[in-house]
């Protein structure tokens, strides 16, 4: 009985973390899937959200800025707003860059955020992090506390999903796709590309901050190590690519699926002799990387391929050699 109840609790935790990652993946999907912006600094915006919400809700502490004890609604909104403002500033300077440059720039910015979180001890308690963060519904009896928290996350995902689907099928979404596919022709059609890209970047980063806020309350603790690039940036990319970029259902499915594999695979490897179990921890990381490669090569569209809002046939651009082919 205990065994089944335990597994039930574990599944709740899988869904909770998977849900938080789904929010991250949806945020990335707006940026990469719909608009073609290569954000490799997910961890940075995730961290901003986590710290803002943590600092606004904790009780007074000598170790870090805090003591505001604001309601969650306020802290979550603040997390998103702060992240949105920072994203706007970052976007202002970085969005003009081509995808590769944007990737390098964002990865650099995320590292700078991390250094700030580690060094500005007065606000963040530096590397020791913010502890005793309240968690919604934690006063309810088990398992209702876990279930309600999960329910909240799932509800948020549904809302985001519906919003994004509406947006995707709106003229805004079609312009986004046009920008991703062919920037020049979109520009020629008189669209203010920079503005659209900025909107997508800011919206995506706000979702990442929302996910960050959830993680801070879920863990009840946030420190710089919780925002390392491996699990906060890279894993999200794998989730989106595997699930199917430019497809919101794909992003959500990819997140739940990859998190389950990431987490549950250890239950198996922990049964190995320890010397091997220690080493196989690295094999798990290797396999995640390999999964990405396999999907990129064999199933580049992911599990749920992109579904176009409106089937409009677009002339596919053939290889670069023929770029100026259609002229004259």
């Amino acid at each position, binding site marked *: 009985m205990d065994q089944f109840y335990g597994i039930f609790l574990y599944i709740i935790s899988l869904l909770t973390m998977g849900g938080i990652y789904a929010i991250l993946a949806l945020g990335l999907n707006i940026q990469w899937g719909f608009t*073609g912006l*290569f954000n*490799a600094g997910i961890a940075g915006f995730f961290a901003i959200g986590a710290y803002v919400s943590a600092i606004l809700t904790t009780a007074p502490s000598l170790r870090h800025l805090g003591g505001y004890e604001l309601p969650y609604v306020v802290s979550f909104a603040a997390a998103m707003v702060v992240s949105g403002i920072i994203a706007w500033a970052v976007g202002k*300077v*970085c969005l003009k*860059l*081509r*995808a*590769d*440059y944007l*990737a*390098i*720039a964002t*990865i*650099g*910015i995320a*590292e*700078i955020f991390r*250094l700030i979180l*580690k*060094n500005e001890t007065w606000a963040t308690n530096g590397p020791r992090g913010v502890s005793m963060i309240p968690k919604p519904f934690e006063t309810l009896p088990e398992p209702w506390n876990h279930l309600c928290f999960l329910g909240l996350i799932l509800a948020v995902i549904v809302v985001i999903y519906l919003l994004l689907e509406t947006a995707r099928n709106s003229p805004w979404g079609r312009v986004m796709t046009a920008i991703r596919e062919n920037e020049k022709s979109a520009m020629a059609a008189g669209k203010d590309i920079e503005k659209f890209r900025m909107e997508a970047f800011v919206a995506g980063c706000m979702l990442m901050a929302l996910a960050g806020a959830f993680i801070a309350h879920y863990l009840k603790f946030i420190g710089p190590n919780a925002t390392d*690039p*491996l699990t906060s940036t*890279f894993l999200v*990319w*794998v989730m989106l*690519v595997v699930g199917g970029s430019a497809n919101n259902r794909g992003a959500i499915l990819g997140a739940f699926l990859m998190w389950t594999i990431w987490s549950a695979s250890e239950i198996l490897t922990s049964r190995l002799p320890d010397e091997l179990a220690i*080493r*196989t921890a*690295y*094999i798990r*990381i*290797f396999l*995640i*990387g*390999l999964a*990405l*490669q396999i999907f*990129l*090569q064999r199933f*580049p569209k992911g599990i749920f391929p992109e579904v176009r809002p409106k089937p409009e046939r677009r002339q596919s651009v053939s*290889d*670069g*050699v023929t*770029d100026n082919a259609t002229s004259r």
Partner: protein
Amino acid sequence: MMEFINFYLIPGLVLGSIYALGAIGITLTFSILRFANFAHGETMLLGVYITYSLVQFSGVHPLIALPFGALLTVIVVLGIDRAFYKPFRNSPTIMVVIASFGMMLMVRSMVQFIWGVQLKGMTQGIQRPMIFFDSLRISPKHITIIGAAIVLMLAVHYLLSRTKIGKAMRAMSDSPELAKLTGIDTEKVVRMTWIVGGALATAAGVFLAIDTHIDTNMGFKMLLPMFAAAILGGIGRPFGAVAGGLVIGIVEEISSYPWIGVEPLLNPGYKAGVAFAIMIGMLLWRPSGLFKGKVF
């Protein structure tokens, strides 16, 4: 003044030479294969560990093992290109960027799996610096590193300016399309790019290991400064990358010099951020870099 030279400028120069060697590979890959190779730091990591094993196995000096380590690393890198990058030659370059992102993880985790995560040293003990003119202090290993780096840079210069394949590399970096139309064997050029990049990355890593020690995070730690150096110098400009590497290395060190008063100008906790800040600043101010590189 001598303190500034001994403890800020010279370390900056050593670090800068190491960044420079790594950045050459990045700038060549970026301009010839047209993608930002996120796995370059891990190529360096792999090269260091392979060389380390050779040193352990044979007991020779790391610099003697280096060519063989580089050779083995290059073989692995060529295999990686064949299996993971080549399928995307005709796809949007961003696919390869993502693939290299994945490769970064795969190589690092493999190194951790095979060699474990225990700290290792290429050389043991300490080396006291030689003292010139009563006050200039340079450690012999630093002279070795800077000297070897200069030799390698000259070799790269010779390759690119005097040999047919080197000229073809520059040609392809100018225009891959025209290179194809001209009949240049672009696959051969790509292979050469990996050979040069892989070998230099190994050298950079081994030099770093001689100066400090070996650990499995060194690849990622070096990646961003190397990117910064490549962008600062201008993509496709190997000598720009060298200059960029030296600038980043030196600025990183002197940023914490007590220019004003006795406190470091920049809290050394932020030292790692200097390279990123320079890089981002450069991307904004002048994406083509100091030496008018390419902007894609």
